């Protein structure tokens, strides 16, 4: 799958790179869905990294597509979780036991990377030292600025807040703390006048 190039935007919008092997004592890799491909590419450039790697993988709707290939990389620890929420306790535990020299690699959707990055930063890793690579869906994790509810995997603009039902416009304004983009009511002045939703980046 080719990588999606996000168009240039405001500086609030996160930008992602390409995972590269870095020297370290231990390697924590967290990926969801097609993010597995970024880990497979990383293994192609340095397979030795995986002897000290802990992979936390959330397949989402890719099912078993990548699981065996990731296992075949021979990571020291390999965990496959049903969802990010189900995996976050494990991520926190790994970070709280970790020492300086840990490298963090995040790959997959923006929502996964943003939330995992937030955990890593809270554990004391500077933002600039956390590697990310976007793969797969361009769906976004959105926060409704009105009711503060989070709607995951938003793929259209505008969309309906899954908590309060307002019609929300998808902004590029991003919060690292919430790991979410901002959604703002699009028909506040003229209720009901809502443009036809279009798929993001189409």
């Amino acid at each position, binding site marked *: 799958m080719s990588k999606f190039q996000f168009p240039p935007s405001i500086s609030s919008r996160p930008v992602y790179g390409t995972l590269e092997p870095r*020297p*370290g*004592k231990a390697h924590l890799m967290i990926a969801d869905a097609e993010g597995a491909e970024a880990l497979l590419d990383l293994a192609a450039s340095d397979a030795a990294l995986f002897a000290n790697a802990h992979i936390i993988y959330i397949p989402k709707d890719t099912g078993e597509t990548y699981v065996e290939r990731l296992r075949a990389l021979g990571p020291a620890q390999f965990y496959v979780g049903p969802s990010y929420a189900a995996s976050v306790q494990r991520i926190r535990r790994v970070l709280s036991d*970790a020492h*300086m020299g840990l490298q963090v690699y995040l790959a997959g959707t923006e929502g996964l990377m943003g939330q995992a990055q937030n955990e890593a930063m809270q*554990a*004391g*890793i*500077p933002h600039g030292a956390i590697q990310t690579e976007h793969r797969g869906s361009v769906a976004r994790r959105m926060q409704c600025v009105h009711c503060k509810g989070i709607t995951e995997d938003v793929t259209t603009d505008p969309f309906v807040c899954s908590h309060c039902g307002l019609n929300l416009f998808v902004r590029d304004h991003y919060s690292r703390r919430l790991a979410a983009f901002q959604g703002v009511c699009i028909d506040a002045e003229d209720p009901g006048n809502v443009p036809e939703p279009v798929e993001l980046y189409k």
Partner: protein
Amino acid sequence: MSAAPQKAKAGAEKIEVTVSAVVPLNPLVTRFEFTRRDGQPFPPFSAGAHTVVEMRDGARTRLNPYSLMSDPGDSSIYAISVRRDDQGRGGSLFLHNQVKVGDPMTITYPVNLFPLDLRGRKHVFLAGGIGITPFLAMIAHLERMGGAWELHYSCRSKELGTYVDELTYKHPNKVHVYFDDQDQAIGLEDLLDGQPLGTHVYVCGPKGMIDWVHATAAAHGWPDENVHSEEFLAPQPGKPFEVRLCKSDITIQVGEHESLLEAMERCGVDAPFLCRGGACGQCETDVVSSDGDFVHRDHWLDDDEHASGKKIMPCVSRFVGKSLVLDR
């Protein structure tokens, strides 16, 4: 008609002080304490800050940066500890040989180029010799805050171990001292291993030590953001050279034993500076044209900027060649 805005003078604001104590600590290092002449409290400073001390040595004015090593919580004094450098440019010798209790002196407001990163979970200090000074202020600060820290301090010998007794007495479990003459050395690799996430290391000492710490930490997977260092460079002597300053419209000579910045100041040019040691970036000056080679010595410009021949840091860098024209 409104008055033209006043151009601020170069360097930080000044404070008039009196030398209130001169305390020899060992054959090489002496502490100088200052009180304010106007009786006001000193401005608060953050641990790691330095002050620039003005020394009037006959016709010559020296301005040397020294780390403040007194407790940042005490606004009644500022203190510096100075190692005598017999081969140096004379600033430390002037302080050691000429300065007495009661002397009036001028120092600058503190400037901090080596602050603690207070987001850190733990702070590991690595000191070489007189590089101990900023850590004394940092330790005082962290002790008050209840912050986690440890110090690894390498010195030449027991006799020259400045503040070793005081530190080991007050913090026996956090201070580790290594004496060169007993073949003791900081076990850096072991020490970096096993530090909790969010640890920051700070190194102050000779250049070789600083480079060693940066390289070893990077090889162990430490982010650059977690490794801090401070090295003040003293300007080095070099062949005299001539410089044209086009804004000031004068041509000046830089002598063998003065820096380009000092030569500009001697000729009445109010050139910007803060640290005078190649670290802060304040003195950065554009090169209009040059025919010759730059001797870049600062830590501010990156390699590409050094190679470009378009910029120079006059506090520490020099020039060898036919002609140099600066936008100053």
